[in-house]
């Protein structure tokens, strides 16, 4: 087995350059690569284009990278939780490309799967369709959407092994598996890292072929955005 292990988050993100395209897993603050975000904050890089469903909150997740002005452009589906994001967007410091969530997921999936484009019904007749080719199939209109690929993708899993195989937990899976495949170099941080052979192959969600670097993260905060309980 090829050993993909790196020492920690700092080593994992050490060669991520300015102005590159970066994918980050997560939905809201669930399943985000907390350790790598912290390590990126200590790097003197900027001009990043980040593909992520959301943009974090003011003081956590991708919001921290925004605050340090490391991000040039966000490619997301929903960014409504972040006042600093709003300020930078309205002042023209930040570019944003808003994409329907399913289209975003499929564009990333296509990027990892070697499919340059596909047709989807989402956005037909809306401003999302502007400038895009549309075509009718079985009497319904669809838009042509293209793949998304990245120089680096950073994902967060529950368990992983030294060969890069990953298992996710709960709804923390979200965009992580597709992004693992769509990054030229995929960095995986996991809560528990074990030797290759210790995970049940039947339970692997992301096969190690997609992962180039893996390490066991620490001190996961797992912040909750909407703490909602039963009475």
């Amino acid at each position, binding site marked *: 087995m090829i050993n993909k292990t790196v020492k920690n988050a700092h080593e994992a993100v050490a060669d991520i350059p300015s102005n590159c395209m970066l994918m980050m897993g997560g939905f*809201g603050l669930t399943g985000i690569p907390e350790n790598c975000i912290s390590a990126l904050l200590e790097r003197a890089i900027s001009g990043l284009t980040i593909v992520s469903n959301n943009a974090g909150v003011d003081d956590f997740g991708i919001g921290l990278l925004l605050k340090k002005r490391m991000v040039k452009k966000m490619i997301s589906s929903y960014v409504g939780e972040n006042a600093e994001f709003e300020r930078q967007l309205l002042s023209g410091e930040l570019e944003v490309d808003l994409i329907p969530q399913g289209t975003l997921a499929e564009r990333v999936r296509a990027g990892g799967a070697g499919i340059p484009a596909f047709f989807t019904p989402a956005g037909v007749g809306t401003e999302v369709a502007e400038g895009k080719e549309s075509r009718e199939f079985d009497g319904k209109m669809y838009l042509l959407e293209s793949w998304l690929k990245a120089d680096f993708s950073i994902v967060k899993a529950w368990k992983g092994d030294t060969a890069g195989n990953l298992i996710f937990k709960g709804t923390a899976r979200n965009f992580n598996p597709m992004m693992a495949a769509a990054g030229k170099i995929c960095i995986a941080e996991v809560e528990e890292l074990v030797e290759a052979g210790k995970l049940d192959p039947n339970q692997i969600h992301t096969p190690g072929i997609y992962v180039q670097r893996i390490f066991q993260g620490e001190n996961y905060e797992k*912040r909750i955005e909407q703490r909602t309980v039963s009475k």
Partner: protein
Amino acid sequence: MLTKDQIAQRISKEVKNGQYINLGIGIPTLVANYIPDDLEVVLQSENGLLGIGPFPTEDQIDPDLINAGKQTVTMAKGSALFNSAESFAMIRGGHVHLTILGAMEVSENGDISNWKIPGKMVKGMGGAMDLVASADNIIVAMQHCSRSGESKLLPDCSLPITGVRCVKKIVTDLAVLEISPKGGFVLLERAPGVSVEEIKDKTAGKLIVEGEVPEMIFE
């Protein structure tokens, strides 16, 4: 006039046994509280869960388990977890039977606007465009008029649209309405104590009234 909970309660009557259902954020989320116990339905959360359970108790809270509104949830018996591409495969593939969502405006041909107000901060469409473009059965839950008293049922949407000709039914605080295939809001039911005249006054789009319009009944 109905409360938000009563709108949710009325919509729950549209739910049929065996359905897979996607509930949007806001009033639609409340519908789950009113689905009769004798119906077997499965709630889909587009962030990757089929089988949403009730909100957790304090000691059940798991930060790795949230719904599309980022609220902590539990998993119902027999639930399944999956990634976001799989989730939207279910949605676009037509496997979800019923979608209930909120709206800012609905037009008389079934167009819906619920993602953007020009000049205001744009938060993004999330999964709304995928849902409305794919679902066969879309019910909108909303107030009949905006806070400033403007009708939200219009000849044409004035806000940027989320999807075209997709809404089937609308439940507001005043009425239950159906989109006619030929265009227009067919008035099906009135909220208790609300007259046809009042609904007519507050509906800017074409309102179709056929015969006696019954009042909604709440048990």
